[in-house]
């Protein structure tokens, strides 16, 4: 018997025990009617070749293991970054259960949002009553300062009009007069979670700005974009801008709501950009986006309101951080203090110490469009070579810009950009044109298993490693963190590769 009370074996060990292995073998042989080992092996080999790759890339309709989510996820995440804000998703309720689970699995934190719980009758008659009752219930139970409404695909397909529904709910007294209920239509069949973020943010800003008169001031707005590392990154942003003495409003700021302390109290709302600050953000001198492809509408709105705008692509590493800080300096007239220059020097110092381990290593990268650009740029600064850059939610304009970035560096030569492709495409790429390392989200672990390419987790979502999002990847400090994360994997790999003791462990070096 493999199990004892003294050394309890769970799934990680239990099913490796001979009794279970034998049981599962017998099940396969007697009852599963599977294919022969040979057929499985041959098919597996076939999936790794160029023929299969071509077939795989001929796909027009089927998406397999895509690295993107749907719009309302981004809308919910965006709304959570405003003070006391309850995201309210109009449509089927299962969707909201999914968004909350998805975000909680990444952040290991509570994620609050409500649904209007539309069912078959609402599909026929529309969801007006769900909106009326839903807003009333949500307001009464959860005491929000603002309810931000977005939509699931069900509400979009049947054509529910949020503007009209919310007005009617107001008339019926679902929420007090003057209570803020911004909204955005976020159809799941267009774009991805990054567009949902953008639409919701534009919806909220439009709600607060539409009747205001802008009186241009000196402050700037920073729009972080959809970011699984928001906790570390937004705090790092604020720290850097504080050092510069820049007056800024982060739109929106999830860093506290996704990082509340354990002290006996559940804070459903914590931190977030205040509604007053959001209103006042109309008066900003400029709006700066950290993720261009995640904030198109928001930037257009800011520009329309007379803001100067600047957009970055998930700035990571030395050059991208330099560019960001210099842009902020120029927009605000503030100088970059010595402290930040010293931090820069420390990152460069770390790079000089370690570059020999990374230089010339080849990488495949996947994630949101801006993340792909940010990480590729840093890799090239380290002398590493991005060979495949893949964004399932990447557009043609993104691919063009990404391609230019690769072309401009000697380390980007031969790098290929894959917009709209999924992780099953990437499997073919890794099998036919292998690389040394893979950077992306937890979904990459299947590629790591199938192709032996070690995975470095730096993109949303990260389900199977804990707490990385609490540390920044932006700024010089963040650059250090990213560098160490990559280095650790390279060095672990070097040790593992020494293989068998006494046979191939020649370079099992103590100092590296």
């Amino acid at each position, binding site marked *: *018997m493999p199990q*004892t009370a003294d050394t*309890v*074996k*769970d*799934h990680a060990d*239990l*099913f490796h025990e001979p009794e279970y292995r034998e*049981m599962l073998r017998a099940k396969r042989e007697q*009852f*599963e*009617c*599977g294919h022969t080992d040979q*057929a499985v092996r041959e*098919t*597996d080999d076939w*999936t790794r070749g160029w023929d*299969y790759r071509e077939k*795989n890339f001929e*796909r*027009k*309709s089927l*998406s397999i293991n*895509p690295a*993107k989510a*749907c719009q309302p*996820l981004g809308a919910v995440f965006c709304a959570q970054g405003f003070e006391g804000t309850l995201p309210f998703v109009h449509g*089927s*309720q*299962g969707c909201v*259960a*999914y*968004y*909350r689970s998805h975000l909680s699995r990444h952040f*290991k*934190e*509570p994620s609050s949002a*409500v*649904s*209007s*719980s*539309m069912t*078959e009758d609402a599909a026929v008659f529309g969801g007006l009553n769900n909106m009326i*009752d839903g807003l*009333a*219930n*949500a307001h*009464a*139970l959860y005491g929000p300062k603002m309810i931000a409404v977005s939509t699931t695909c069900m509400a979009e*397909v049947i054509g529910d009009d949020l503007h009209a529904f919310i007005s009617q709910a107001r008339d019926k007294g679902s929420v007090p007069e003057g209570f803020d209920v911004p909204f955005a239509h976020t159809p799941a*069949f267009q774009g991805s979670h990054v567009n949902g973020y953008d639409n919701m943010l534009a919806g909220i800003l439009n709600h607060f700005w539409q009747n205001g008169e802008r009186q241009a001031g000196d402050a700037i707005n920073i729009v972080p974009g959809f970011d699984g590392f928001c906790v570390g990154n937004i705090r790092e942003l604020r720290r850097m801008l504080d050092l510069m003495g820049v007056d800024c409003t982060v739109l929106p700021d999830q860093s506290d709501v996704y990082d*509340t*302390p*354990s002290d006996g*109290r*559940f*804070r*459903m709302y914590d931190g977030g950009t205040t509604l007053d600050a959001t209103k006042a953000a109309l008066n900003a001198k400029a709006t700066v986006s950290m993720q261009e492809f995640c904030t198109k509408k928001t930037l257009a709105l800011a520009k329309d309101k007379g803001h100067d705008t600047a957009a970055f692509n998930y700035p990571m590493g030395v050059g991208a951080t330099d560019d960001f800080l210099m842009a902020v300096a120029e927009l605000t007239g503030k100088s970059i203090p010595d402290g930040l220059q010293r931090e820069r020097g420390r990152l460069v110092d770390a790079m000089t110490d370690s570059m020999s381990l990374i230089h010339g290593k080849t990488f495949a990268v996947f994630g949101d469009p801006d993340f792909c650009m940010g990480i590729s740029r840093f890799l090239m600064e380290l002398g590493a070579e991005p060979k495949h850059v893949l964004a399932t939610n990447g557009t043609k304009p993104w691919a063009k810009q990404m391609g230019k970035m690769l072309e401009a560096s000697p380390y980007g030569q031969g790098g290929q950009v894959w917009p709209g492709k999924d992780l*099953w495409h990437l499997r073919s790429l890794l099998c036919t044109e292998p690389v040394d390392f893979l950077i992306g989200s937890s979904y990459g672990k*299947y590629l790591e298993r199938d192709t032996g390419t070690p995975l470095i987790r730096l993109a949303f979502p990260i389900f199977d490693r804990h707490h990385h999002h609490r540390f920044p990847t932006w700024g010089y400090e963040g650059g250090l963190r990213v560098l160490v994360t990559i280095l650790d994997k390279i060095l672990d790999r070097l040790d593992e590769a020494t293989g068998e003791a006494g046979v191939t462990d020649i370079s099992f070096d103590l100092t590296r």
Partner: protein
Amino acid sequence: MSLDYTNDRDLHEQLIEDVLSAYPDKAAKRRRKHLNVADDGTSDCGVKSNVKSLPGVMTIRGCAYAGSKGVVWGPVKDMAHISHGPVGCGQYSWAQRRNYYTGTTGIDSFGTMQFTSDYQERDIVFGGDKKLRQIIDEIEALFPLAKGISVQSECPVGLIGDDIEAVAREKAAEIGKPVVPVRCEGFRGVSQSLGHHIANDVIRDWVFAREDEHGDFQSTPYDVVVIGDYNIGGDAWSSRKLLEEMGLRVIAQWTGDSTLAELERAPKAKLNLIHCYRSMNYIARHMEEKYGTPWTEFNFFGPSRIEMSLRAIADFFDDTIKEGAERVIEKYRPLANAVMERYRPRLEGKTVMLYVGGLRPRHMVNAYEDLGMKIVGAGYEFAHKDDYQRTASYVKDGTLIFDDVTSYELEKFVEGIRPDLVGSGIKEKYPIQKMGVPFRQVHSWDYSGPYHGYDGFAVFARDMDMAVNSPVWGMFKAPWAA
């Protein structure tokens, strides 16, 4: 073993009044029917169930798609399950249920893959049937060892009037493999539950039609099927082991680690063993009606119920199996006793609240009681009346019962009762832990398991102990804080 205790009726009644006072009148009136304090005399816990959730209250429920793709169909490992519609549903449910399986993923097994039609606006406007045809061709071209395909409908499919049944028929004939259309659009029904039912009906109508495929299958008098075990963390395996050891032949597992052949051959069994009654009773009833196969519910959580279940199952068979059951009980009793001796002193008298799907709030009760723990509150996300009827005999007088609880209510109940442990899902885990109350996810086993069978009971006991007795719960208050 069954513990003798009652719960604090007055407190629980007060808590119900308190939470109801927060709702608008109309909502309070509806929610009142779903909250109750169990009475020794009642036969159904006295709550209303399986009706629509209120809008805006943060129900914990999911949808019909989750019930079909996520629960029933997703674990069938040698088929490709298409999440048919926009990308999100398949993405959020991708590899999250921990239905363990063996096989080579992407080659002959597909359990942890996300196949989606990723509907775009043009598909909504022009319909998705053409795309579905092409998808089936593409699956066939890239995954030739897949034994079949299922189409798991997301909301838009039913709203735009796609005819997935016609596509399924046409393509099945063309590729010579089953293509199974499932109308589990998320807006159907009031929870996951209708999705289970629809998924069961599809097995009846689209899989059993193919039973002739296995004409050469040799039956034995000891053939059973395990139904409603999704092999979460390997549960079905630690159950199968016991059934085999008592002399039974498990010809199919539904649907954890199952294959299409296992679905098709099930009608050849002598007895159907139902673990999750809520999600798969429908098909068991159908098999009884059509094939005359009897079914029985069993419970492999904790030694008391395992013993009862092994004997009850054996009663359907001859002495060989009855002796086999006794032999299994004898074999594992020392393990069960050792586990209880080790963990019971650490858990004795601790209180537990459970809020899970449609089975576990009752099925797990005795496993906790085997460890000396008491159930003070229990509720279901998507149970029906017959679940609450089955629950009545498990729970003690004064137990707080909450159907389709809202996050607001659950938080207030936990705050008021301060149980020593809460068992619920990922959405509930972090709010409750922040309150300083130990928590285990009891959908996914919090990434542990198995919990079924004797091997699983040891893991269960270890996990409950580490949850309740972790030193971290003593650190919530800073020593200098007032």
